[in-house]
């Protein structure tokens, strides 16, 4: 192989090694420095630039909300266990299983409503612009997937009907 080509390839390899080495070292160091898993609210403080007073209000709301959320989760989990114990064998859907599914759906709806109420309350405890951004982001994170699924299903159903 020609010498200049070897020099070029060697320089490229060395350059890539320097970039990759510094990239991964800096990435690792930043991840360790920024990591504060002890506090759930750390993200709020950093992302929405909240003052200590805002954080104190939000922390109070957060701590008040957590037991309610845990209670709803426990109810949903219990209802799911009951549904599983009914034994959904074969294709038969018993009236009891149907009722349990409705109960789970209701519990989920209540849980979601409670969660949205909490998001609204937290957003109101923030400066107006940040609150708006927080609410939009939380809706996107929690309801976005469902909405996307519903939209894709309704689009699909629309096409099906249109083709008939």
């Amino acid at each position, binding site marked *: 192989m020609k010498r*200049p080509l070897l020099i070029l390839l060697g320089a490229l390899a060395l350059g890539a090694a320097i970039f990759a080495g*510094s990239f991964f*070292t800096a990435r690792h160091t930043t991840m360790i420095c920024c990591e504060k898993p002890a506090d759930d*609210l750390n993200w*709020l403080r950093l992302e929405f630039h909240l003052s200590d007073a805002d954080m104190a209000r939000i922390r109070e709301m957060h701590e008040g909300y957590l037991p309610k959320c845990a209670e709803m989760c426990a109810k949903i989990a219990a209802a799911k266990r009951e549904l599983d114990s009914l034994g959904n064998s074969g294709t038969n859907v018993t009236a009891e299983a149907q009722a349990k599914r409705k109960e789970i759906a209701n519990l989920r709806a209540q849980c979601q409503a409670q*969660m949205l109420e909490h998001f609204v309350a937290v957003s109101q405890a923030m400066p107006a612009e940040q609150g708006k951004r927080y609410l939009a982001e939380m809706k996107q994170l929690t309801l976005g997937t469902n909405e996307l699924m519903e939209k894709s299903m309704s689009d699909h159903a629309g096409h099906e009907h249109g083709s008939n």
Partner: protein
Amino acid sequence: MNAPDSKLTALLRDARPSPALPSRFQQNVWRRIEDAAAPAQSESWLDALAALILHPRFALATAALLLLAGVFAGMADGRQFARHDAQMNYLAAVAPHAAR
């Protein structure tokens, strides 16, 4: 005096026969003379690049630039990752079903 000399010369030539020249000998000699006399060919872009890479100032500057670029890109990526991690932490606390 002349006659014995020419005789002697002929005798010597016969005694030491010179080997036959290779084919196109004269043409090859002229070609080599022309090649040597011609100005040096301009170097290719690859040679120029290799020469530039071997230049210490250029090599050092490029290495420093790559190092800085790597550090900044790594920090940005690490911050993004940490932000996402913290966001998932918060989401897991307030909406355990959504975070799953």
